[in-house]
């Protein structure tokens, strides 16, 4: 017993000792826990607090509504419309397929749509809405709303989509919006661009003023849980909606111009304010519907636009460059005047001009007989200008043309703008490494040969003439938000006013009795226009064709002459200038001039009505009904040829 007690005591001594060691180990382990706690909570506390905030708060961007684009009197040209879309939240339905089957009865969904929807359902979190279809019609929206009880998980969401009330009519000015490309995303700092579905201006005004129109992103601070589900909104900043952009365009005139051009296969027209350079109408036909671009254009439609021979996507006012033909003659005349040529000097026109072994023809077979400068402009006598050009040389003509804005890009920033070509001896050497042939000067004199110009350049040239030699520049933007940017005082281009007056008088003669465009004159007193017609060869007329007397209308459309016309009005104190081209329209004075007449008369009548309204004290901002008014046009006189 004693032995047992002794052994028991010994055993307990060992155990007590070892218990102490064990206790020490536990105390050490406990200290490690406390140390770790101190490290995490005190030493690294701030770091983890930051991480916790990041965890908790998710910043969502709110897309601001895009600024509207309006015409000069406030008529909306580009607005935002509600876009209804059907969405499906997959966690609210037991069977996605079954729900989709029901949806299909109300909304046509293609197999591709369905595949995309099912893919999104798999990919996204179960509470994230998956878009079933966008741009629902009212009927579709109401059909779904009525059937919502049978469509678990389906709901209608409202978004914004860009809408162009004028559709095709202003497409080339406004451009369109589209989704952000990969490349644009890389170079941009604006976080908005990474917002899914966000659209930016891709062309035209939408692109030029994209930053102003875009606005700034709003933010919504959301408290989210670990799976991203929104618990509540902590703070919200709605951001700045985009600025409104006011254009110099007159919606009514624009609409009318586009309608007027639609009578032809392919044409362009531009009307501008002579004093400000503000573009009142800029029409290019055929056109396209930018609304389709805003919603995402179907590939087949896009392909058909691309393939169309008349290139609807091309804005011909700036991106079409044409031989200006006789509309260039005022430049030749001015160059002559500045070179000291006597305008009263007469040149005999026998219908052709022989030079350097070549025969240069006048469009009038029998010739004009003796013509001075005034007659030459009025009747568009080619031989007079051959002679004039030969005397002064191409460089003077080119210099004059450049001072009038030809051969140079405008600052419109419209897509695809061309510079056109104003050739001179230096240009020839630079481009072709060849010397200039004098014969080429003769072609330049009548706006053929190497010379090309865009309609906007021709309009600017006309405006600069009509303004008495001011370097008017064209522009489309009148104001961004409230900041008016219009300029009215323009530098002088340094041509003697009397020279310009002489050319303008000649151009006034074009629409007077005996002038080439007399048939297309404006008869209303005080509204009369002056102008210059041009019929530019697209394809050289061979001697055989000339001899055969091939009728121009019988040639293939693509080979027919372009019809051009530049004009200003009113003649006494010009306010408006315009340039018209009808591709392959054959007759400048017969086809292009009537369009110029209609547009210039329309704008003058409108302005007169406005002035009257303003005088009567009526609110000038009365809603403007945009429908083309009946245009009073002079009846075409029978028996007149098709002069250039």
């Amino acid at each position, binding site marked *: 017993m004693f032995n*047992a007690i002794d052994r028991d005591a010994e055993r*307990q001594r060992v155990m007590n000792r070892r*218990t102490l060691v064990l206790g020490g180990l536990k105390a050490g382990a*406990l200290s490690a826990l406390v140390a770790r706690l101190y490290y995490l*909570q005190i030493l690294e506390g701030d770091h983890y607090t930051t991480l916790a905030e990041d965890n908790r708060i998710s910043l969502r961007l709110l897309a601001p509504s895009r600024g509207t684009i309006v015409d000069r009197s406030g008529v909306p040209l580009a607005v935002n419309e509600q876009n209804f879309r059907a969405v499906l939240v997959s966690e609210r339905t037991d069977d996605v397929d079954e729900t989709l089957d029901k949806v299909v009865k109300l909304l046509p969904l293609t197999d591709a749509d369905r595949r995309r929807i099912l893919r999104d359902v798999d990919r996204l979190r179960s509470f994230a809405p998956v878009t079933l279809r966008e741009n629902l019609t009212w009927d579709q929206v109401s059909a779904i709303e009525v059937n919502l009880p049978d469509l678990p998980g389906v709901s209608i969401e409202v978004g914004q989509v860009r809408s162009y009330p004028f559709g095709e009519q202003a497409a080339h000015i406004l451009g369109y919006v589209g989704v952000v490309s990969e490349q644009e995303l890389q170079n941009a700092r604006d976080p908005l661009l990474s917002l899914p579905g966000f659209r930016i201006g891709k062309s035209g005004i939408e692109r030029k003023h994209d930053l102003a129109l875009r606005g700034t992103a709003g933010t919504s601070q959301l408290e*989210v849980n670990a*799976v991203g589900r929104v618990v509540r909104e902590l703070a919200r900043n709605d951001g700045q909606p985009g600025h409104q952009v006011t254009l110099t365009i007159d919606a009514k005139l624009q609409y009318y111009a586009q309608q007027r051009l639609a009578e032809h296969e392919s044409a362009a027209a531009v009307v501008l304010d002579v004093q400000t350079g503000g573009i009142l109408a800029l029409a290019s036909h055929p056109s396209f519907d930018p609304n389709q671009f805003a919603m995402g254009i179907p590939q087949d439609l896009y392909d058909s636009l691309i393939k169309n021979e008349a290139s609807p996507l091309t804005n011909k006012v700036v991106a079409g460059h044409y031989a200006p033909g006789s509309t260039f003659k005022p430049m030749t005349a001015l160059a002559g005047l500045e070179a000291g040529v006597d305008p009263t000097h007469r040149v005999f026109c026998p219908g052709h001009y022989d030079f350097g072994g070549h025969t240069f023809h006048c469009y009038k077979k029998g010739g004009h007989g003796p013509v001075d400068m005034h007659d030459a402009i009025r009747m568009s006598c080619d031989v007079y200008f051959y002679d004039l050009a030969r005397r002064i040389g191409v460089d003077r003509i080119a210099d004059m043309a450049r001072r009038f804005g030809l051969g140079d890009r405008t600052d419109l920033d419209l897509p695809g703008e061309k510079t056109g070509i104003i050739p001179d001896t230096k240009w020839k050497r630079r481009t072709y490494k060849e010397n200039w042939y004098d014969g080429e000067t003769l072609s330049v004199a009548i706006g053929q040969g190497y010379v090309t110009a865009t309609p906007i350049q021709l309009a600017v040239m006309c405006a600069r003439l009509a303004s008495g030699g001011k370097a008017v520049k064209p522009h489309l933007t009148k104001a961004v938000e409230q900041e008016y940017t219009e300029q009215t005082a323009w530098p002088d281009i340094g041509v003697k006013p009397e020279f310009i007056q002489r050319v303008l008088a000649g151009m006034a003669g074009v629409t007077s009795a005996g002038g080439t465009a007399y048939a297309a004159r404006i008869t209303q007193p005080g509204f009369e226009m002056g102008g210059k017609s041009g019929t530019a060869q697209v394809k050289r007329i061979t001697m055989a064709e000339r001899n055969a007397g091939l009728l121009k209308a019988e040639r293939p459309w693509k080979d027919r002459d372009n019809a051009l016309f530049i004009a200003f009005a009113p003649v006494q104190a010009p306010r408006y200038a315009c340039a018209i081209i009808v591709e392959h329209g054959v007759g400048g004075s017969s086809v292009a001039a009537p369009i110029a007449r209609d547009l210039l008369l329309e704008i003058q009548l409108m302005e007169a009505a406005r002035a009257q309204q303003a005088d009567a004290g009526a609110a000038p901002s009365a809603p403007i009904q945009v429908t083309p008014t009946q245009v009073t046009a002079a009846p075409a006189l029978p028996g007149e040829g098709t002069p250039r």
Partner: protein
Amino acid sequence: MINLDMGLDPQSNMSLGEKLGQISWSLVLLITAVACIGFAMLYSAANGNFDPWATRQIMRFAVGLVLMLVVALIDIRLWLKFSYFLYGIAFFLLIVVEVMGHVGMGAQRWIDLGFMQLQPSELMKVTLVMALARYFHGASLEDTGRITFLIPALVMIVAPVCLVLLQPNLGTSLMLLMVSGAIFWLVGVRLWKFALVIGSVLAAIPVIWHFMHDYQKNRVNTFLNPENDPLGHGYHIMQSKIALGSGGMFGKGFLMGSQSHLNFLPEKQTDFIFTMLAEEMGMVGALVFLAMYALLLVYGYVIAMRCRHQYGRLVAMGLTVNLFLYMFINIAMVMGLIPVVGVPLPLISYGGSSALTVMIGFGLLLCVHVHRDVRMSRRGMSDF
């Protein structure tokens, strides 16, 4: 000692009243206080609701409290007598779950009793301690010095550990090993034998690694490098550290733990409840909690030291080590000190099995205290 010398046995036949008087009511109060922290945390975990966790946990605790007292009042000699039997039952249940247990969380671990799910591995944590205590109750230092004497005990350990590993439940099997190791240590097994075993285990690690399940490998990898995979396996630990760290000195306030309430914290009502406590109560609250826990451990030590028989000492020490291991593994895990192992925090975490076994453990601890002076022969039951 004096009592023993006098050959008296004042506790051998205590009345129920005497036993109730002997219960350490201060320990019961401490246990209840710790459990109340648990209720509060479960209330917070449910975003300020008693449902679904706090109410059920309170009810379970009430049941557990009664069970604890019943266990405490049963004569310790009866526990000694039935130690092997209870161990046998737990072992049998382990085999049962292995054969036909439910599949949950990728591991077969529990038997559905209807009102709760019973994890035999949890039961084993208590019964293994009892069985080993019984085995070493009568062993002298000479006995424990003999390897042949140790072999049956080793079998008693290794067999359930293997079954638990098969489930597979790495955490519990390691706990079983560590508790057994602690008992071996206390009964005087030589240090070099431990060194030998530990050495051979370390050598076997590559082999063990080979046989480990992918999810277990991932857990170890995640532990070694949690930032590598912040949305995968490292996610839990990252989020837990963020929650803990962002608590700071004084915490975000009760019910204000953004990490926990926004579900960034996984399993916040079970394994990661300490994280939520530290997030909402800060370092101060966590230290208070740890201090209370340390006090529980001190109680276990004092009870063991004051016990006059080897069985009671070993049971008290074993259960204290068990409690410590639960707490340490859980807290070290949520703080990113050790790999993620699914070990609950006793008295705090929501759950059935562990709460039950922990309360039984406390009951046995109290029982040892009540019967601290009971006379038991070294050879077992002869005096009973």
